[in-house]
């Protein structure tokens, strides 16, 4: 699961001389929130987001109405963009979880994906949310069950073999340490070809593990 498989290839991009009026329209028409600014050879020069296009009232306060118009129409994306040296970017071979970590750490909503300095794609919060959705096989029907188990080696294997013994399929499985109790580990499993009652019956027999949530989706 690498960034190159989940990023948007060939993103829409702007050249530095594009006026911000046009940039705003371009982003609006195409429903995008991030616009990399590139020079020759798709070299990253900066990034325009909807925030950077917001007009700073403090800067306008001293201008009269005519000056505002001229000031705004003369603005180019190169004047407002976040310069490349301040843009956080990643490479196509980064893992998606690393991309998520970088976005959380820097509190940014998108990462341009650079290969040798050239923009080859872009990955945003939306891509990661979609990935979470796909990892949990959200669009498939089945029984979604959350199991709390001791944070001990071999526990997950016991759960999986209990499911396998019934001949059920597992389209998705994820897990994490219980945030309130590091001794416990919560697994979320999606199960095919079974009803809620069958799942409860089969999994409640697994010793030491506890069903904390089960629902048919």
């Amino acid at each position, binding site marked *: 699961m690498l960034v190159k498989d989940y990023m948007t*290839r*060939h*993103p829409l991009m702007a050249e530095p001389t594009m006026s911000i009026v046009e940039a705003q329209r371009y982003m609006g028409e195409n429903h995008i929130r991030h616009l990399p600014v590139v020079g020759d050879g*798709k070299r990253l020069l900066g990034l325009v987001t909807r925030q950077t296009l917001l007009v700073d009232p403090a800067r306008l306060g001293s201008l009269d109405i005519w000056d505002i118009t001229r000031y705004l129409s003369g603005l180019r994306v190169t004047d407002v963009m976040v310069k490349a040296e301040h843009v956080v970017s990643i490479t196509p071979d980064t893992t998606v979880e690393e991309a998520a970590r970088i976005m959380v750490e820097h509190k940014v909503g998108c990462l341009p994906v650079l290969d*040798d300095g*050239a923009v080859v794609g872009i990955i945003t919060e939306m891509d990661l949310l979609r990935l979470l959705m796909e990892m949990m096989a959200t669009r498939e029907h089945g029984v979604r069950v959350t199991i709390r188990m001791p944070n001990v080696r071999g526990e997950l294997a016991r759960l999986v073999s209990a499911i396998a013994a019934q001949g059920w399929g597992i389209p998705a499985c994820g897990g994490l340490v219980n945030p309130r109790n590091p001794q416990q580990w919560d697994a979320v499993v999606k199960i095919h070809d079974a009803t809620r009652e069958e799942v409860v019956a089969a999994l409640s027999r697994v010793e030491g593990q506890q069903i904390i949530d089960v629902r048919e989706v």
Partner: protein
Amino acid sequence: MQGAPKIPILEVDGLAISYKTRRGDVPAVRDVSFEIMRSEAHSIVGESGCGKSTVAFGIVNFLGRNGKIVGGRILFQGRDLVGRSQEELRKLRGDRIAMVYQDPMQALNPSMRLGDQMAEVLIVHRKMKKAAAEERCLQMLERVYMADPASVMRRYPHQISGGQQQRVVIAMALLNDPALLIMDEPTTALDVTVEAAVLDLIAELQQEFATAIMYISHNLGVVARVSQRVGVMYAGELVERSTVEEVYLHPHHPYTQGLIRCVPRLGADKSSSYLHPIRGRVPSPANLPPGCVFEPRCDYARPECCSRRPPMREVSPGHWVRCFFAEEVAQQARLPQDALVEALAAARATPADRPILRVEGARTYYEVPSKRLIGGGKQQVKAVDDVSLEVFPGETFGIVGESGCGKTTLVRTIIGLERPTDGAFEFMGFDIRTPLAKRDLALIRNLQMVFQNPDSTLNPSFSVGAQIARPLRRFKVVPKSEVRQEVIRLLNLMKLGEAYYDRLPQQLSGGEKQRVGIARAIAGRPELVLCDEPVSALDVSVQAAVLNLLMDIQKQLGTTLVFIAHDLSVVRFLCDRIAVMYLGQIAEIGSAEAIYAPPYHPYTEALLSAVPIPDPRVEQKHVRLSGTVPSALDPPSGCRFHTRCPRMLGPICQTQAPPRQDDGNGHYIYCHIPLEELRKVEMVVTWGHKDAETR
């Protein structure tokens, strides 16, 4: 979020392009609209002169000095390309659109090593360091499955084969990671097996690089293989546009139907079907009909078609047609079978006992000087090496194989243009090993040839009539006073008419030139006509007409035909018996039915699986040959096919020449694999019927 709502990479809306000429503006493209989504392949098909390439050139603003976009919009990634200056365009489009042309040699600089040319792209566009750029080029060449990429980088373009050149060009186009790749007939100049491999590559790269592809082709089979959606273009307009399945299975426009009907399908033969050529030809853009552009050639035309231009309308979701009567047309998709079909079946040749042409152990070698500076005798290119075949009166005998297999050399040797090195050649019982100059006039008269390229075989300064009259006078076919009458009769037979008598070759279209070539060949009423790829340079609708013509002539005059082609569907359609050649030798020989059904020679199997078939329902086995035909200078030992054979048995193939195995009925396979094994091979092409059931 990028791409959440479907944004087309390219959106062409109401595009119109005109060329300025002395007689005023010529509208080459009118009202063309389509869009290409992210990582989608969209094809444009049509005959030559329909404006396909003009659309492509319009997108990259490459129209030349007299071309101009006169209307419409071209949105690339949501931004309009029309009406911008060159500099603006360059910035806007940058290196995000790449183009691959038909002839790879035109895209490559013949005086630069391939590695330097490729690296230049990165050094100039991306300002990469030379070493890094070369490293990346090497990776890209590996990516397009180039054998031994490091050595290819050091070579010049002429030192690699056409298929390899096209791979280099594709690799170069992808170096900049374009969002849109425009391919203008990229495989037209390639052999069928190479073409199949390049098409596979294109489909794979499209997935990996998420590149949107605009694919221009005249070949319906190729289009069915590479693209998801297709637009059919005719005389500068899009006449039909939908998914590939829709267009092929439910064509709604008479022109689309015509195109599909005039391609011989692999598996069809002349006794069971008749090609339906589209009469007439594409109107010149300077002289368009006032109503529907297809009206003069349309079988369904009604009075309103002549006066009003039909609009593009949606007949079913996503299926656009430019025809007033699309629904009716779709229902009458199949024409009533012609009476000709039965006539042809009846006229089918019954093989006589005595062959008209017998070739045994034919060898034609060319001598080339040794490359060594000192010593080293002359080397020999074994273009034809031990070929034996018999052709019976009244039949059509096909010879197929990739280019460089010795097909042309064989017929040139038969007709006397090359001197045979060894072997017996007998025509109507006469020995024909003598060179052309010493041959008896009667012999020459009875053995004629139709060449591949009609442009280069007609004398440009003589009128059509004079060229056809020449063999008539020379062979004294008719008395002098009747020559003109006879020429006109021949022209009528060719469906050309008397008006062509005084025309010069430059005033004729490709199909008409080829008809004149055929008329000239049959003027002396020969017994045997050798046809060297007579239709491969022609458009499909013209090709159908020429093929029908050849069949009619054969029926009327009882002429025997030897027909060379690389297109297996054409050969299957036309020929009674077929020889498959590989590297100067015959791999398999037999009746048409026997060649196209198991047991196959492994080479035949690969050829068949490479044929692009214009029918999405067809299931084709996936056999791909690696590499190209080895050099005839130093053919592989043992079985010559062993270097590329997917079914190679083992050392025996490398050391011993394969035995001739008899499958009965004159069907012979030259292979080490026992016939029982070969019989177990399943059919390469199966006609899927699942679709027929569901509908």
